[in-house]
């Protein structure tokens, strides 16, 4: 029974892929490199890190207003990253 269900879904998936390939070929689209969900999260982390790193540098240069804005932007744009948490801690430290 499981094999029958699996085979059905497998054939469906193959048909859908063939259809997508035909559409892509008709539009002249080139195959693109894929990005897994984990890769997306990594890129998000990287962007947040760049923001926090810049904010840290501004804080060291006594540009507090710029640093606070950058930390807040990191929290706003990439809330689910590790660096957003770092930004929150930095903000608390600056405001205390």
């Amino acid at each position: 029974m499981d094999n029958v269900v699996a085979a059905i879904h497998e054939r469906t998936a193959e048909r859908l892929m063939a259809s997508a390939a035909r559409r892509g070929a008709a539009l002249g689209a080139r195959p693109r490199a894929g990005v897994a969900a984990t890769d997306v999260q990594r890129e998000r982390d990287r962007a947040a890190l760049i923001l926090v790193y810049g904010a840290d540098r501004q804080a060291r240069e006594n540009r507090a207003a710029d640093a606070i804005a950058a930390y807040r932007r990191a929290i706003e744009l990439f809330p689910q990253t590790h660096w957003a948490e770092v930004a929150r801690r930095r903000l608390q430290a600056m405001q205390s």
Partner: protein
Amino acid sequence: MKSLWIIPHLLAASVTPVLAQATAPATAEVAPPEAMKSVLLPANEPGRAATQPAALSNTRSATRNVRVWTESRPDVDGLTAFLYQRANELAPAVVRLPGTTAGEWFSVLPIAAANWVELRMEVNLVAAGARPAAKEFLDEMVTAVETFLRDDFRRWRLEQAEPLEHARLDANRRLQEARARLSDIRAKMRQHADRSDVSGKGIADALTKLEEERQKLELDAMGKGARRDALERQVAAQSAAVEKKTADDPIAAELAKVVEAREQKAKQMQAMAAAANASQADVTDAIAHAAEARAKLLERQRDAGGEAGGEAIVLLNRELLTLSVDLHELDARLHYVRRHLDGLRSASDLADDAQAAETEWQEARAEWKSVTDELRALARSTARPPRVVVTGGTANVPVETPPGSGGGGGSQPKSGEEH
């Protein structure tokens, strides 16, 4: 010091000033003759024993004309008064008369012309007990004239030079102060501007150039900052979009169901094998099928991410990183430019002070040079001391009257040239 004494028989009263001038000594230093030295030599003078005392001239009356050429315009009244005072001082030693009677037997007649003064001095020693040394007395008075004129000339030269010397010292002090102030201000300007050229134009040019650079950098930083903000937002939005699209992919959904069925089958086969109802080969085969299904799902999810724009996130992040480095560099350059602009502005504020100090220095320098030139001119004009020339004179030796000739034993004056 060369000296010239005018021999009386060569220089009578008729000697012209031109001749006298031509034979005048180069300086006022005129040494008294040896005869006069011996007259004035103190009794305890060591040289007295060694030298034979000169013979007394035995003159009771004498005249002496002295002409003086000098640029110091001596005080004739002062000179006359000095000569009378000196005559009183010399009287006891030279002619053995009291030191208060010179006015009775000595006279001076000054005659002033445009560029010379002539002194006609006369001695008439008729008083009883007077030593017959009229000639020697006048020799000494000539020396007194020279002494007076030499001192007067020195005083006159000092009086002329003193204010100029003061002015030169003052100008020199101001010059040094202005130079020190200018040097101090320029050192501060160099420190502020961090450049060797601290001229007004140099500072102004550097300010203009650096202001332009600052504006360019600020504009660049503003543009890149805006681009960085946009990229950050784009990365956030794109990553959310990719996640959503991947989650909603129908092919991946089908493949996920395949994975679910295959895994279920693998579990069943494991249970059956445990009950000895299936072989181990069947279990292995079921697990392999499940793994294959998972691999296909992952591959599909990756493809779905790529189709949703996942690759773009990587590119955006790469540009974000590059922009972040660029902004860091721009910030560093802006920091440098702003710091130097502050320094240049401080240096520019000092430029007015430097200009004032330089003007003061130039004025003091011009004043110092002017005063120095005046002092040189004064030194040239006062280089020639007064010239004193005896232009004529007489000395009368009394004629001894033989006893019994009716003259009463007195002496008759015999007029003759001084010798």
